């Protein structure tokens, strides 16, 4: 091809897609793929945040961290205590979780009602809880109770040598609850965090929603869909479905009386409610040799 055509080709690329700068990419917002409308809204919010941060506006005092460029902050790792602490990055209040040199930064959106952002860290129980509607999240930000529809959003962070760099105006969406354990809406509960815990008071005062749901599927191949299910200890609703004619119950006699289920179809759910203390519970199909053939599993209840 002639050098003139080569030159024209070069100009099409370089004029049509001009060079990117560091500010174009650092702290760049990432849109949620499954929800374009939400993504546009988030992008608009991020632009506003970027403008506010760029203008050096800080609405909070205390553990504020200064932005080194719009939306990006650095702080020495040595300043962060082991465990969970609160920081203000620009105007945003965040929870910083440190485990040795690993740093995770959580936003305080509890994924329930718009604008509901209050979040506490309960050191005894090792959970995050929202005092308004008692949304519960574990130390890794996963939703484990209450009406939250997703886990806590993370803020991208990297640690280099002795420095923590936080890109404060981009969010990594929190994980959705998995298939096996989702959460019911309002309900009673007996979650007790021990004397002197403000978390306990908040939960009781707000009638926390604390019934977990466990889905178990009976398979045609004479097995359950998993050999082990993990659930938070406390009230649990089991929803059982799948291959017709395969019953399900607990090995524990007391729990067996409360929960004997039978699968009918993949669309029809049989259900029961039990209360589990932390521990391991064997469940199985009581028909003849079905248990020996593989229709046996363990439910592991862990402290919330």
């Amino acid at each position, binding site marked *: *091809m*002639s050098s*003139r*055509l*080569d*030159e*024209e*080709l*070069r100009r*099409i*690329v*370089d*004029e*049509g*897609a*001009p*060079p*990117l700068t*560091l500010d*174009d*990419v*650092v*702290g*760049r917002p*990432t849109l949620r*793929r499954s929800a374009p409308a939400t993504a546009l809204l988030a992008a608009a919010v991020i632009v506003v945040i970027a403008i506010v941060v760029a203008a050096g506006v800080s609405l909070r005092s205390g553990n504020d961290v200064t932005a080194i460029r719009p939306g990006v902050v*650095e702080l*020495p790792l*040595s300043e962060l205590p082991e465990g969970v602490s609160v920081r203000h990055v620009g105007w945003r209040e965040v929870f910083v979780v440190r485990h040795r040199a690993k740093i995770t930064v959580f936003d305080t959106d509890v994924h329930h009602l718009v604008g509901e952002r209050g979040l506490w860290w309960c050191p005894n129980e090792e959970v995050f809880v929202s005092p308004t509607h008692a949304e519960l999240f574990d130390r890794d930000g996963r939703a484990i109770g209450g009406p939250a529809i997703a886990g806590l959003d993370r803020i*991208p962070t*990297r*640690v*280099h*040598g*002795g*420095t923590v*760099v936080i*890109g404060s105006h*981009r969010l990594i969406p929190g994980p959705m609850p998995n298939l096996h354990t989702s959460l019911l809406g309002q309900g009673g509960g007996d979650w007790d965090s021990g004397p002197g815990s403000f978390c306990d008071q908040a939960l009781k005062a707000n009638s926390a929603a604390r019934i977990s749901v466990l889905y178990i599927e009976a398979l045609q191949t004479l097995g359950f869909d998993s050999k082990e299910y993990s659930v938070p200890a406390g009230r649990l609703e089991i929803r059982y479905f799948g291959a017709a004619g395969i019953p399900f119950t607990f090995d524990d006699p007391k729990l067996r009386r409360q929960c004997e289920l039978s699968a009918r179809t993949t669309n029809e759910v049989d259900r029961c409610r039990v209360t589990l203390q932390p521990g391991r519970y064997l469940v199985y199909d009581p028909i003849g040799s079905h248990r020996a053939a593989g229709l046996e599993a363990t439910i592991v209840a862990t402290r919330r």
Partner: protein
Amino acid sequence: MVDPSGRVVTQERSSASDSFEAFFSEAEPRLRRALVAAYGLDRGREAAAEALAWAWEHWAELASKTNPVGYIYRIGVRRTRWRRMPVTYEVADRHETWFEPKLRVGLEELTKRQRTAVVLVHAFGWQLHEVADVTGIAVTTVQSHLDRGMAKLRAALEVDADE
């Protein structure tokens, strides 16, 4: 490592930041041109921005890779998959007349790999092995895409091989 005066920490911070900036200056044009060649002006530039944003966030991990540009090229490709933007080379707000008006359309009609080879080798003077390194395609395959792409482009422009 920790100096009570903070001097060492400051140096570390600045060297981490400097090394990413040096990488950015070197990688940005190569990455952007390769992705624009493959996916068009808008989508390619977006993919390059996504890839470099990932690079910033994972710099400690990326810095140890033997071929960091090739690595984040694949990140850019993955992150642009869900976008349904057309591959286009229409340069907006340009008042000058193009020397060869059919060139843009001819480019759009090439396959992604043919276009990548033609643009990077002819417009930007890359060696075949450089294209192979970034895109993860074998050198012989790049050569073959280049030959087919050039033949198709010449046919579209109605020019001979020696023009």
